[in-house]
């Protein structure tokens, strides 16, 4: 091989390695027993049977199936076989299934088998938002035992009031009878037998997932014969609680999810899988099953004939109609106490960052110059803590210091670790660091996520506790004023169309029951109030379908001029050295005295 070609290939391999790492895979430079083969995924149109055959030539192994991805993961029995495989398969070319093309393999080692959540999170992106899929929730024996019980029930309960042969499927109801005319149940008329005993274990296990707010008291069992289906529907949100769970037995099937303005998502339903319909998948998406005798799986590569399928749908009946378990559009109020603030931050800050981490990280690569300036102004070899370091934007900009990062989001800290930055997970309201152990702290674009003033002050106090006397602190928070000396911030400039201020004004909430509502902000426009929810449109970098764009709302408290300064002045031992506006942010430099 020529030098130039070799160089080109090495460059290409480095690029692929970075991509795999971005997917959350932990590449090890030393051989391990787990090999990841880039370009060998089903997403590369590589035939999985051929691949299985190929990889098993080098030793006992399991091909960890990663549908639709651009890589495959192979777990070998030992490192020797893995090494043999990786070395042999490096550069291997396999004919793609549909086109007259080759897929060229690049092999890497993983330093652990991909954690469930890594694969899980990736698969989640192919599912409607909020839909949680847990495969192999039951084993085959448990499945068969349940099917036997159900078949028994069908035989004795047929023609009973709880069993119905609908046009395209047979149903059994327990707990309450489902009324198909109104799609609800009569809460005053429960079925005396309640739920059958044989599902109690299964129900215990579903409860143990922690997703269900309360134990379901209504069960519908559907039996689908080949050719049966169910029209697209959203389960009644008035009569049933916020989360639905459904377990599938027997045949596989394909469930179609549809939503206005979104591309249809087809979800393969393998037997023994548990689905939890939460959030958007529960309220906004319709789900249905087409009447067919077969399904086309694996992107057109596999045709599978349907057999008899049983689905068990568990619902919780809302007893108090006035206090419905879920509402179509939630209303958010500005929190007034700690517990409300805590749950708002948890749902609209922490969990959002965990979901958008990859996309967020890709948009937060360029450090802000004045933050770098601050870091460079510190004495050489300072010990600096970056509180709310995100994906580590500032952890690598000043090599002369020891920079340690922390963030509330596990996903973001995982990205820091991939970039080789020391970091840990914690909440900024309570820093697990010894008092005075740092020479300086930075806290960039963090304290605007705390939902009460008390918490914002607490966060600043913690920064002060972390630094030594004489130590410096730099804080940035988003400003309600997005123009300074008539210069628009970058945030506003990015707005291509002139904002329609009138339209936004009309969105401003009026106090309701004396409580102020959170406004949903229109991106790239002026802020209309201080406490708001800012939409984050997440593009899924891994998926090719256009439909993989979802919106998350993040809570912000945007700061007014002098507000940040005045918070700091309430804290003893804190002296404000400088206060300034930087591109739509209010900033302070503090010294611990």
């Amino acid at each position, binding site marked *: 091989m020529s030098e130039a070609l070799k160089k080109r290939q090495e460059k290409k391999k480095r690029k692929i390695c970075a991509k795999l790492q971005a997917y959350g895979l932990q*590449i090890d430079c030393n051989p391990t027993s787990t090999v990841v083969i880039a370009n060998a995924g089903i997403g590369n149109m590589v035939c999985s049977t051929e691949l299985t055959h190929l990889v098993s030539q080098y030793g006992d192994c399991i091909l960890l199936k990663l549908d639709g991805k651009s890589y495959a993961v192979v777990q070998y029995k030992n490192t020797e076989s893995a090494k043999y495989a990786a070395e042999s398969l490096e550069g291997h070319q396999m004919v793609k299934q549909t086109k007259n093309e080759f897929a060229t393999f690049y092999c890497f080692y993983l330093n652990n088998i991909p954690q469930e959540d890594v694969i899980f999170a990736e698969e989640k992106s192919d599912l409607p938002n909020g839909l949680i899929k847990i495969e192999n929730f039951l084993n085959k024996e448990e499945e068969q035992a349940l099917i036997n019980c159900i078949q028994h029930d069908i035989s004795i309960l047929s023609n009973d009031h709880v069993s119905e042969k609908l046009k395209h499927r047979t149903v059994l109801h327990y707990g309450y009878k489902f009324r198909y005319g109104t799609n609800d149940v009569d809460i005053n008329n429960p079925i005396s037998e309640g739920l059958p005993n044989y599902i109690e274990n299964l129900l215990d296990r579903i409860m143990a997932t922690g997703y269900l707010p309360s134990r379901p008291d209504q069960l519908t069992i559907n039996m689908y014969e080949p050719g049966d289906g169910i029209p697209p529907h959203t389960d009644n949100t008035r009569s049933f609680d916020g989360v639905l769970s459904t377990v599938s037995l027997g045949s596989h099937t394909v469930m179609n999810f549809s939503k206005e303005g979104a591309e249809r998502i087809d979800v393969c339903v393998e037997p023994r899988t548990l689905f939890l319909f939460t959030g958007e998948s529960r309220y906004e998406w319709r789900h249905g099953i087409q009447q067919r005798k077969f399904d086309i799986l694996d992107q057109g590569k596999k045709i599978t004939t349907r057999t008899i399928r049983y689905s068990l749908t568990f619902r919780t009946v809302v007893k108090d109609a006035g206090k419905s378990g879920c509402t179509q559009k939630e209303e958010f109020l500005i929190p007034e106490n700690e517990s409300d603030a805590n749950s708002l931050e948890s749902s609209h800050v922490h969990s959002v960052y965990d979901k958008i981490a990859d996309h967020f990280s890709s948009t937060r690569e360029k450090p802000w110059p004045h933050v770098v300036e601050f870091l460079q102004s510190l004495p*050489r070899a300072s*010990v600096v803590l970056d509180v709310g370091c995100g994906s580590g934007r500032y952890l690598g900009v000043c090599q002369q210091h020891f920079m340690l990062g922390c963030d*509330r989001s596990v996903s973001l800290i995982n990205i820091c*670790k991939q970039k*080789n930055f020391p970091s840990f*997970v914690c*909440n900024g309201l*309570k820093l697990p*660091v010894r008092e005075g152990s740092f020479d300086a702290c930075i806290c960039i674009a963090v304290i605007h996520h705390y939902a009460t003033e008390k918490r914002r002050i607490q966060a600043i106090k913690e920064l002060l506790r972390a630094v030594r006397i004489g130590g410096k602190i730099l804080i940035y928070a988003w400003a309600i004023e997005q123009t300074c000396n008539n210069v628009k911030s970058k945030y506003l400039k990015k707005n291509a169309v002139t904002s329609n201020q009138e339209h936004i004004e009309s969105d401003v909430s009026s106090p309701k029951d004396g409580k102020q509502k959170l406004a949903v902000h229109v991106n790239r426009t002026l802020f209309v109030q201080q406490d708001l929810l800012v939409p984050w449109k997440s593009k899924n970098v891994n998926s090719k379908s256009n439909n993989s764009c979802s919106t998350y709302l993040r809570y912000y408290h945007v700061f007014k001029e002098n507000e940040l300064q005045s918070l700091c002045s309430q804290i003893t031992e804190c002296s404000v050295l400088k206060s300034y506006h930087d591109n739509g942010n209010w900033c302070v430099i503090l010294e611990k005295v």
Partner: protein
Amino acid sequence: MRLSAFVRMRLITHNMLTSHVKGVKNGYPLVIKAEDIKEQETDFNPDFISRMITRIEWPALTKAMEMIGHTDQLPEEVPKDYETNNDFLKQAHHALMEIEVITGSLTCPESGREFPIANGIPNMLLNEDEV
């Protein structure tokens, strides 16, 4: 080809961390239980290390080394000539920067609360009732 190596929890990070469980008076140093440790050479910068010596708790570092089974590698006290004592600075560099805990836990010495270390990342999140 050199792929990036992963930084796990180094002992310098351990030196900064403390237990922050509600009601705990002395949560320092955290007790290390290491299931998986990795040693990895990093560039030695004597100026940087001698500066770090002034910023860390030396007894906690010697204790940390003992807790992971590296006994008798560090002097009990920082020598007076530490700034120019290259041998010492190298030892300190190794202890602070090159030993990484990949899997294990950090335990609060007072309350016994355990904080897991997974993939080299200490998770110091508290439950609501511990704040």
